[in-house]
């Protein structure tokens, strides 16, 4: 991609300092000061991310997964928001200490984001091409014509049929899946280091969801960017995430590789999330195992472990003392008092591995021919 006259040096060109990671989030705390009290929206989130990696952030509504991402992007209004502690380092530079002007250059250029609802995140009065090319004009100094040309190429890249025609249409002329494709084209226009996707497929049908996930993985293979995938559905991140962070009430309650979260989980909240997904084609219809009750208010958090009121295994200590992270050698941690008790871990849900029913053979993926563009 030809780089034109910009005053800034791109942070993404800077090498990552020895021993550091692409993105490091360290004990991040973001609280909102409201009339009702202090909302502990993000409370001690830590993780690292490298290029080419995918981090899945999983949790229910209100668990702080989106606020964490918005804090990293500097998109939280302060006040009412206030960073109460922690650091975010991108290629060794502290993002929280940057000026708004510096952040503006990072947003879209180094770290890009796509949102759940592609209708409200696209501007209805501008043509798709204008919006997809906006980052290029802003960050790369492309002319209008060049930006439109590149936007057409990008639409083609994300699989939108007839990009020359589509580039001149408005968002309402696109279907939900097409809009999300356009959002991805926009997010990837400046070749960012990190793509944050906040529930990108929740508003879409399952067949379209499969297309969008496929597209994000394809683009990642091509560009080598990192992905942070935020979702409430563990199924969505099962085959795309390298690492997974499970959040509850603003805190990370479990963190590990995808294998560790799905097959060696050590937190009863993660078990609850896995159990509540309806299984396909089971012999007998067992009742689903939901997580009872509702997530707690982030203003008045219960004493002790925040999950204790909904935890089927909670004992006295859980209601009194907040658990610390119990970490294994591989860095897999769990915020549960009993995470290293082998007897307790026997309550973990069955998986294909524990049942010894791992499918063998090479899977077959059929991609149908792309003739199905809507009218």
């Amino acid at each position, binding site marked *: 991609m030809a780089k034109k006259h910009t005053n800034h040096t791109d942070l993404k060109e800077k090498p990552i300092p020895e021993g550091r990671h692409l993105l490091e989030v360290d004990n991040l705390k973001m609280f909102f000061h409201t009339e009702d009290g202090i909302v502990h929206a993000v409370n001690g989130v830590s993780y690292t991310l490298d290029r080419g990696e995918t981090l899945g952030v999983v949790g*229910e*509504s209100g668990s702080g997964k989106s606020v964490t991402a918005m804090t990293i992007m500097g998109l939280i209004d302060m006040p009412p928001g206030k960073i109460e502690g922690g650091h975010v380092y991108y290629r060794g530079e502290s993002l929280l200490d940057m000026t708004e002007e510096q952040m503006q250059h990072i947003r879209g250029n180094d770290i890009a984001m796509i949102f759940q609802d592609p209708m409200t995140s696209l501007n209805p009065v501008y043509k798709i091409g204008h919006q997809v090319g906006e980052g290029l004009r802003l960050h790369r100094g492309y002319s209008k014509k060049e930006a439109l040309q590149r936007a057409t190429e990008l639409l083609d890249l994300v*699989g939108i*049929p007839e990009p020359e025609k589509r580039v001149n249409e408005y968002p309402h002329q696109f*279907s*939900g899946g097409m809009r999300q494709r356009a959002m991805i084209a926009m997010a990837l226009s400046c070749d960012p280091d990190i793509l944050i996707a906040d529930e990108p497929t929740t508003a879409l*049908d*399952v*067949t*379209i*969801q*499969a*297309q969008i996930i496929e597209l994000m993985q394809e683009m990642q293979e091509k560009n080598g960017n990192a992905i942070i995938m935020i979702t*409430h*559905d*563990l*199924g969505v991140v*099962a*085959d795309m995430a390298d690492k997974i962070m499970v959040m509850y009430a603003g805190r990370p309650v479990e963190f590990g590789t*995808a*294998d560790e979260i*799905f097959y060696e989980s050590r937190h009863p909240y993660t078990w609850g*999330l896995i*159990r*509540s*997904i*309806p*299984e*396909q*084609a*089971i*012999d007998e*219809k067992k*009742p*689903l*195992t*939901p*997580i*009872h009750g*509702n997530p707690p208010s982030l203003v008045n958090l219960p004493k002790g472990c925040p999950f204790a009121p909904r935890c089927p295994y909670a004992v006295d200590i859980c209601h009194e003392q907040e658990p610390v992270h119990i970490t294994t050698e591989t860095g897999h941690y769990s915020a549960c008092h009993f995470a290293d008790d082998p007897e307790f871990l026997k309550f973990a849900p069955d*998986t*294909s*591995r524990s049942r010894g029913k*791992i*499918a*063998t*053979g090479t*899977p*077959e*993926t*059929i*991609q*149908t*021919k*792309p*003739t*199905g*563009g*809507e*009218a």
Partner: protein
Amino acid sequence: MASNTTGAPLLKVEHLTKEFPAEAGMLAGRFSKRVVSAVNDVSFEIHAGETFGLVGESGCGKSTTGRTIMRLTNPTAGKVFFEGKDVAQMNKHELKDLRREMQFIFQDPYASLNPRMTIGEIISEPMTIHGVGTKEERMKTVRELLDVVGLNPEHINRYPHEFSGGQRQRIGIARAFALHPKLIICDEPVSALDVSIQAQVLNLLKDLQKQFGTAYLFIAHDLSVVQHISDRVAVMYLGKMVELSDWKTLYTEPHHPYTQSLLSAVPVPDPDVQKSRNRIILAGDPPSPLDPPSGCRFHTRCPIAQARCSQEQPEFREIKPGHFCACHCAAPFPIKESHIDL
């Protein structure tokens, strides 16, 4: 399940077709013949106490089917019989009686509850409209219903905004059960909820069905949710029913390529299974119902389409007893081998 599939069906839908004029306004339909073919020649039956799942992507006509059955819109052609009576021929009074037996649960728990009414008023409204009991009796029923759906009966005077999404959906369910209807049309009742809360609501619907013997028409875009609750499942594509069978057959031996691709698109919370299973990823979006493809409506996205598919409309035929499929080629895809974990 306590469903009785012999005997006379509770609901019988015959060749139901619903078209909407493509242009809005006074002269719509007079000069222009363009129509949106939302539902096209759909037939099925629902028996007392049974759950019938109806699945398909946005715009496939599943919600329109539900709304037409309740006569919230009038059908263009075809017939709907509820307990043997033709819904389309009913007058105002008969319709009111019909709606006592047939209730609706909506998708959006935020939009379907009046924010200015208390929970007590919302749940007792159907009883008020149909003149059931005195005010005291109604409030007593509301308290019982709140208890049944797992809400605190003391919250009877609270307003909807004081409840979370899952709790609101419980309120909508209590309202639907207030008159003990024989059939409830559930239009995507869990799509707006978190996975963990979805399971709560699905279990509640099953428990209530056991208790009251209500039949459900359960509409959803997600096969995994429908499979869990349904006795029989039908799949719709672009206004047409493409496959119908009992739930187990549909999930273990899906015949229509569209059903197969829907099944393979459901995310499985198990990376090993997810990585090893066969998948069909459909290209593009469903075509517009304004101008549906010729022949089989699915042929533009079908992985096994042949020349005849674009010319000849496939018949919705019974391939095995109780298993219907509308496909010229209808053969199970090898997807079965690796992804189903029996």
